[in-house]
């Protein structure tokens, strides 16, 4: 659905997107992550044909977004980050206008506007002036606009930006619902959202793609994966030595600040694929060291994100 090859965008004095290449298949839901200024919005704007690229190509549904822009844009439903709307219009008028602009005619306008208002919960406010809508409803209207012409690809730039937790949950469930019908490229700062909604994650930093995999694989590749936390009442040096003597343990470190009333915490780095938790439990029982915690650390997407974006 999306084919991006060596896409580059240079502004005066800086390169916002630097030789980016990736593909998104039909039906995929891809999270596009990166810190502020990483190049996410610029990439999305190029995909929607709004910004021309300095170099490289981008195709949407087989259409070049630069040379065959109008056809490419017909396949895209785009929701920009700031959700710009015409404040003087009524909700239903705005959607009618957008539907007609996107090529729908006559009865198709009415049907599709009704459909997206049902889908996004805008029916109750359809006669309201856009200026009077709350942030949550504005966000829904932006989403309804992106959906109204049944695009094959949805590009959503920070769709939950500025929403309260309940609204975030609503938008998230809506995106999950949409993922059955559309290919979705979604940019967000909320990583839990990506873990819940996206089956693939692309992390962009300083204009370059730094990671591209499933959230699970990325978490597995994190430095904090393959670690154990052990807390027991034991002398630090002796316990460290004993732990390092066990098979599958690469390194054990006592955490000094965690020493409290004789309780000592250890961080244990494991060899790839090793799980020596039973041996550790056996060791503490044999040495008579009371064991309070033995936990395998689960790396999160947040860990991966922080590692990648703070690496340089």
């Amino acid at each position, binding site marked *: 659905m999306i084919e991006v090859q060596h896409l580059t965008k240079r502004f005066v004095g800086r390169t916002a997107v630097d030789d980016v290449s990736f593909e998104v298949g039909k039906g995929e839901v891809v999270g596009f992550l990166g810190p502020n200024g990483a190049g996410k919005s610029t990439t999305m704007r190029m995909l929607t044909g709004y910004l021309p690229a300095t170099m490289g190509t981008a195709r949407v549904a087989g259409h070049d977004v630069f040379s065959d822009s109008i056809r490419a*844009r017909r396949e895209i439903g785009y929701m*920009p980050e700031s959700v*710009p709307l*015409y404040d003087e219009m009524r909700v239903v008028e705005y959607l009618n206008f957008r539907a007609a602009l996107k090529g729908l005619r006559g009865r198709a306008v009415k049907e599709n506007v009704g459909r997206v208002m049902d889908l996004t919960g805008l029916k109750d406010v359809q006669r309201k002036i856009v200026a009077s809508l709350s942030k949550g409803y504005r966000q829904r209207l932006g989403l309804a606009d992106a959906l109204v012409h049944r695009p094959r690809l949805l590009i959503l730039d920070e769709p939950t930006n500025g929403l309260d937790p309940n609204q975030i949950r609503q938008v998230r469930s809506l995106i999950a619902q949409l993922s059955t019908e559309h290919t979705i490229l979604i940019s967000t700062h909320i990583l839990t959202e990506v873990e819940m909604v996206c089956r693939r994650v692309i992390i962009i930093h300083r204009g370059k793609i730094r990671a591209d995999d499933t959230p699970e694989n990325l978490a597995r590749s994190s430095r904090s994966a393959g670690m154990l936390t052990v807390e027991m009442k034991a002398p630090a040096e002796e316990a460290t030595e004993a732990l390092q003597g066990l098979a599958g343990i690469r390194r054990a470190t006592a955490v000094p600040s965690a020493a409290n009333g004789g309780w000592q915490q250890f961080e244990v780095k494991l060899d790839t694929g090793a799980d020596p938790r039973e041996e550790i439990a056996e060791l503490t029982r044999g040495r008579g060291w009371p064991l309070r915690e033995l936990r395998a650390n689960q790396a999160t997407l947040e860990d991966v994100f922080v590692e990648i974006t703070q690496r340089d």
Partner: protein
Amino acid sequence: MRTFFILLIKELRSFFLSPVAWVVLAMFMAICGLSFSWSINILREKPQDQSIVQWTFVPVWFWLYYPFLFPLITMRLFAEEQKLGTLESLLTAPVRTWQVMLAKYFSAVIFYVVLWLPVLAYFGILTWILRGKVEIPQGALVGSYLILFITGLFHLALGSLASALTKNQIIAAILGFAFILLHFLIGVFVMQQAQDHQEFRPIMDYVAIKGHIESFASGLLDTRPMVYYTSGTLFILMLTHQVLEYRRWKS
């Protein structure tokens, strides 16, 4: 073409939903009404060389409100869209930049034409009241409306260009006014020079807007200003298109 009309209708709705449009319309009607009644009073006092049409469209006070009209109409056209970010959602729909530009420009043209319709009604009412006692010079009326329309196209294009250059409506208005004033002053300068220097005469025939309105209001239709304003309008609209593309590319 369909996309153009969808955008044009939307723009016209936006125009007539904006309070500024109604304030401009009301003020303009009041000024034109006053101008018209002064013209009648002047003609009632003693016989004049100039017709009622000339007194309505060519008096000195005409230049006190005419140049302000265009920035008020055009200032929001692109500046507001750029400020609110709606230009992004507009140009990521299957719409071309020139369609957006022309729809906005023609909505301003339609509003401008609507502004002048009441004055036409004043002449109609006067003719009806006098019922053949006084004849309104039809040629002068047609000429006046023609030149107002053609110069209007040109000035609205200048205002559109100013609005495309900035995100701020006030700056767009000031810039638009500056462009129009500059064009007017160049015309006045050339007219003054032409009195002493013959070589300025051909230039004057093209650029002196004051002279154009005066000659058209007397019923004299000259094709040179028509060509000048039409080609100028097209050139400025092309420039506006390029400015919009440039601003989009560097956003």
